[in-house]
């Protein structure tokens, strides 16, 4: 094979591999962007919606809650996704719709004998006043205190609830995504962190060695989040312009209906129905 033949074969193969650029029949296109917590759930909802409505194409992109809010406000995407309630100054010109709820629970390793935590204790832990499990009646061991990355909605919710400012938080480690935090706790018997209730409960049911601590005497579970007795909850929000285009409304109504309850449960969140 000469080099020319080789190049020729190469180019021909490439041309064959390129897909046809035919326009698709789908004429209603929606784009969503924002929270990486909601993205997997909304992707699944979009998948089911597309199967039922053949003329729709829904593209989901991630990038974080703040980006979702900004994109929706600037009209860069049709629907924004945020895993925290919007600040007052973010609410102008947009409408919010609660897709599902999620709680934030304090989570320790399953070997840890501690069963519950009060808000005062949590504040002392995260401001560095308690650093040994003995002080809470546990075994004599140094705590590994894990904080969530600044700017994540969990961190914002936790610090706001406990009334501490983000720079006052004293922690040994900081982690970003839920799964990363879970891996840190399952690998360290003296660790404590705070995590999505749905995700944690899902992992407990799979046999992951972690325990959700009762908070202020209320057990942390999907049930207490649903009946709103659990204090630390966050809404998973969809953000749209105030005047809804027809196709946005159609998808939105579908997402907020009880037809997607099984998908919400499947992604370890709590449906509002």
């Amino acid at each position, binding site marked *: 094979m*000469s080099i020319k033949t080789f190049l020729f074969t190469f180019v021909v193969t490439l041309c064959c591999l390129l*897909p046809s650029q035919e326009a698709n029949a789908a004429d209603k296109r929606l784009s969503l962007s924002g929270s990486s917590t909601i993205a997997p759930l909304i992707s699944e909802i979009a998948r089911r919606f597309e199967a039922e409505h053949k003329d729709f194409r829904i593209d989901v992109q991630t990038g974080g809650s703040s980006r979702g809010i900004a994109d929706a406000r600037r009209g860069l995407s049709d629907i924004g996704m945020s895993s925290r309630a919007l600040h007052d100054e973010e609410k102008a010109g947009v409408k919010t719709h609660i897709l599902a709820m999620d709680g934030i629970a304090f989570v320790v390793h399953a070997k840890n004998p501690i069963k519950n935590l009060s808000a005062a204790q949590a504040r002392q832990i995260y401001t560095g006043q308690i650093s040994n499990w003995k002080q809470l009646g546990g075994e004599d061991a140094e705590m590994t205190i894990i904080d969530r990355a600044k700017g994540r909605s969990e961190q914002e919710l936790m610090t706001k609830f406990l009334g501490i400012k983000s720079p006052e938080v004293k922690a040994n480690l900081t982690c970003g995504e839920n*799964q990363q935090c879970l891996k840190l706790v399952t690998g360290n018997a003296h660790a404590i962190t705070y995590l999505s209730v749905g995700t944690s409960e899902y992992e407990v049911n799979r046999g992951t060695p972690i325990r959700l601590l009762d908070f202020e005497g209320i057990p942390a579970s999907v049930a207490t989040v649903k009946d709103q007795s659990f204090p630390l909850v966050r809404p998973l929000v969809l953000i749209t312009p105030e005047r809804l285009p027809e196709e946005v409304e159609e998808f939105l109504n579908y997402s907020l209906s009880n037809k997607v309850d099984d998908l919400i449960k499947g992604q370890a969140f709590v449906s509002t129905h």
Partner: protein
Amino acid sequence: MDRYVFREGSFTVITWLSGIAVFAIFALLVFDVFYHSGLFSLEFLFSDVKGAGREGGILPVIISTSLIVLTCSVVSLPIALGSAYFLFYFSRQNTRISALLRVSLDVLASTPSIVFGLFGSAFFCLYLDLGFSILSGGLTLACMILPAVIRMCEEGLSATPEEYGLQAAALGMSKTALFFHVLLPAALPTLSAAVLLGIGRALSETAALLFTSGYVLRMPESLMDSGRSLSIHIYDLAMNIPGGDQNAYRTAAVLLGMLFVINSVALASMNFCAGRVIRK
């Protein structure tokens, strides 16, 4: 002990140890991935994604990845070869421009990929209005791998004997003929290695693609569709999806397998035709 023997002996030991260390790291990595992924059927490769990736296969992800890498190589290969030839001529004259070009290429080659991601998102997605698409992703990756590939291709061309140019001139060969009939075949092994390293880097890229080719799990229908690459799929499964670990490891195993196959097939075929050309 004789100082000479000691010096030579310790040098040998250190060389061997570093060799073993590199192999051990590679072996550990492969073992870790395949240990956790377990045995999985080929159906995983050929079925659609279900449950946000937790169940089902990864067919759309494989197709998207291949299209991204294909776009990237189709765009970057000719540009890389052309610029390398251009630089190669400059380097024989060693001008100030060539030195400047080389320094800027080296700086670009060591730029973190997230910077290319942001550039691609601003330039291809927003300014050129390509949106989140496989095309934007491929073009961004092309920008990202070009500097390194150009530099390596240039090294390959420079490694050919200087007499080739003189002999070609004496025979009245055109520059095009010199390039296609003499230099390209002679430098082919190095060039193919350069291209493969570039494609390998493109295949395993995450950060640059997150903001350009996007996160969509659907089967792509054209280059203008958003499509998720294997590495982003692994990242999302491992970090974002409860219970996604098993499939994250499986996807990682597929990615490693793809890298391995592409590397060995391309190397073998390039060596094969290089041998043929030179004998002729």
